[in-house]
Each structure stands twice: as C-alpha cells, then as structure tokens.
C-alpha cells in the first residue's frame, strides 16, 4: 500500500482550464500539505491542513483552492490554469507537528500548454 498517493501522476492541459489533483494518505496522520516544485527543483509549501482545518496558506493565487473532506484526503483544485502553473505538485502528510518528517507522495507533473 502506498502511504501517500496522489493522482494523476501526469496532467497536461490547456491554459484557462480547471483541473484537480487528489491526494490520500493511509498513515493516520493529522496534517497534510501541498508543495510546489519548480523547474529548478525548489520546493515551496502552498497549503497545510490539520484535521480538515486550514492552518497554512502561503501567498498562493486564489485560483488554487485546497479541499479536505476528511483528514486522510487533501485535494487541490486549480481554476483558470496559466503557463506559470506548470510544475510538479507534491502532497505530503505528517504527525506531531512534522517531527519525524513529512511523508511525500510521488508527485503530479502538471504541464499547461
């Protein structure tokens, strides 16, 4: 069983479209995250949810909207996609305020054309 699974793995879409990325963790962790990794491999946090409650919301365009239906799921919806949204998006989860590290999914490579 994959600890943190995200779908799809690859997503190619046109500018202006709306798309969603799904994430599920089976580790029983309380906190889930979305990170964005750019072409230079820089990883930057976007959002964090703890028990379905938003606790971290970085300076992200409001076209990005996370949704956590339960503590095992954190989905990311992106409206009106732009070329600059092309990146790899990673979901992660952690327990105990991240002590012991985050467990990351394998990433979703989003390409906006």
């Amino acid at each position, binding site marked *: 069983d994959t600890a943190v699974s995200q779908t799809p793995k690859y997503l190619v879409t046109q500018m202006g479209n709306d798309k969603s990325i799904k994430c599920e963790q089976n580790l029983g962790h309380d906190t889930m995250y979305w990170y964005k990794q750019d072409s230079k*491999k820089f*990883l930057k946090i976007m959002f964090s949810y703890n028990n379905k409650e938003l606790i971290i919301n970085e300076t992200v365009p409001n076209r990005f909207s996370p949704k956590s239906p339960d503590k095992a799921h954190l989905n990311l919806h992106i409206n009106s996609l732009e070329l600059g949204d092309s990146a790899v998006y*990673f979901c992660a989860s952690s327990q105990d305020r991240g*002590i012991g*590290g*985050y*467990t*990351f999914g*394998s*990433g979703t490579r989003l390409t906006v054309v």
Partner: protein
Amino acid sequence: GESVGLHLPTLSVQEGDNSIINCAYSNSASDYFIWYKQESGKGPQFIIDIRSNMDKRQGQRVTVLLNKTVKHLSLQIAATQPGDSAVYFCAETGGLTQGGSEKLVFGKGTKLTVNP
C-alpha cells in the same frame, strides 16, 4: 524573511568516497532540521533529522552535523554508492517549540552524482 540555502548546487564523487553536502539556514528560531533525498521522478524521502539541542546525529551511512552558531547544517554520506545519486535537500522548521512555525522550509537542493 527565512531562507534555507545550499552552498553547492552540484557534487560529483567517485564510488566509495565520502560525500559532504552543506546547507546554510537563516531562521534562528528553527529547532528541527531534516535531510531529504529525491530521486528522479519521485517525491522527497526522509533520510535523517536532528533537533537543535544536538550537534551530531548518525544513521546507517549518514551523519548530520548542526552548527547553530553559524547556522550551518551538513550531511555526510560514507562510502557513497551509485544508488546515492539524487538531489538532496535540507529543510528546517520551528515545530518543536510550542507556538513555533511548523512549516517545513526547504533549501534549494544539491545534485549528487556518484561515478562508478
């Protein structure tokens, strides 16, 4: 603002050599540090962590050193193997301290290439 950076973007070593990857951080409130390994096409994978009340921690072939005075972190890999080839990230958080930021901030990454 806070930032975590790496001195060397790339590092190339011979198989069997020891590797040292360095990292500088600027947030003195950070109390917990982690090294991650990211292989091509995969997500970051936890390697080793260290709390700010320690200056050294050892794993199986890895050692992390923390120098809080100069805000420096390093990862040492002994007897580097081809399978160690990856991008390595340091990351910091203030999550150990009640009221501290538990946001995990990543450095820019160092690409390690191990030559056979």
